[in-house]
């Protein structure tokens, strides 16, 4: 009995840690568009995640920001790390008008490498 309980506890602790770590990197939940050509990256480092919901509200982590605040954050981040990539997580129903504003703001502060997040479709 004892070894089994040990094992189960170990598994429990493992999954609890995983879920805590996943929470730390929490972003808002969105219905991302599906893409047949996208690829899951090997490395997720060196990225600044920006989420855009259906109405075009801008989020970094789970915090809502204005366009100007977002731009300042990117500016600071790019100063520290010039190779920063901007990952845009936009809902599939988000209008281009809102995405354009974000792209423009990124280009203005020198963040040229941009990634659109999608789900892989089969």
């Amino acid at each position: 009995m004892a070894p089994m309980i040990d094992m189960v506890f170990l598994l429990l602790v493992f999954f609890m840690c995983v879920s805590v770590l996943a929470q730390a990197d929490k972003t808002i939940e969105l219905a991302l568009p599906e893409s047949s050509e996208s690829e899951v990256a090997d490395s997720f480092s060196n990225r600044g995640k920006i989420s855009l919901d259906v109405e075009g509200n801008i989020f970094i982590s789970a915090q809502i920001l204005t366009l100007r605040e977002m731009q300042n954050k990117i500016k600071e981040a790019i100063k520290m790390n010039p190779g920063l990539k901007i990952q845009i997580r936009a809902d599939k129903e988000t209008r281009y008008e809102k995405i354009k504003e974000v792209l423009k703001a990124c280009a203005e502060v020198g963040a040229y490498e941009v990634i659109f997040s999608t789900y892989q479709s089969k």
Partner: protein
Amino acid sequence: MARLPKKKQPEPTMPLAPMIDCVFLLLIYFMVSATLERQEADIVFELPGVIEQDSPMEMPDEQIIEVYGNGQVIVNDYSYDEPNAVHFVELAAMLSRFKAASDANKIDAIITIAPMDDVRHEVIIKVMDACNRAGITMVNFAISEEA
């Protein structure tokens, strides 16, 4: 006074069965919540940046893809694919020909996507998919001009 024989206390034991039930329940909960999240994938592109002035200018081949709010895709005044198509097959075929022509001339094939303001993000991703399928890696967005 006669002493009563000391009653032997039963050894304290931990009720294991309910604890295991609880732990299993927690285990299953965390396992399910860990696997439920769907993995996100990438489409990478670069925004138009600064061109080095002293590098020789080679004129690339450029096509502008106009995307309208209803999902209609227009290149050189010609409409490709049904707006509601799952994949933009005609567009991808045209882009493949364009890429082949550019390759034959040894120049870069560049695509600029110019969506209208009311285009849904989903449609833009479908256009980018079509570019990817045609093997075109240089994709730009029209962001400076007011579309």
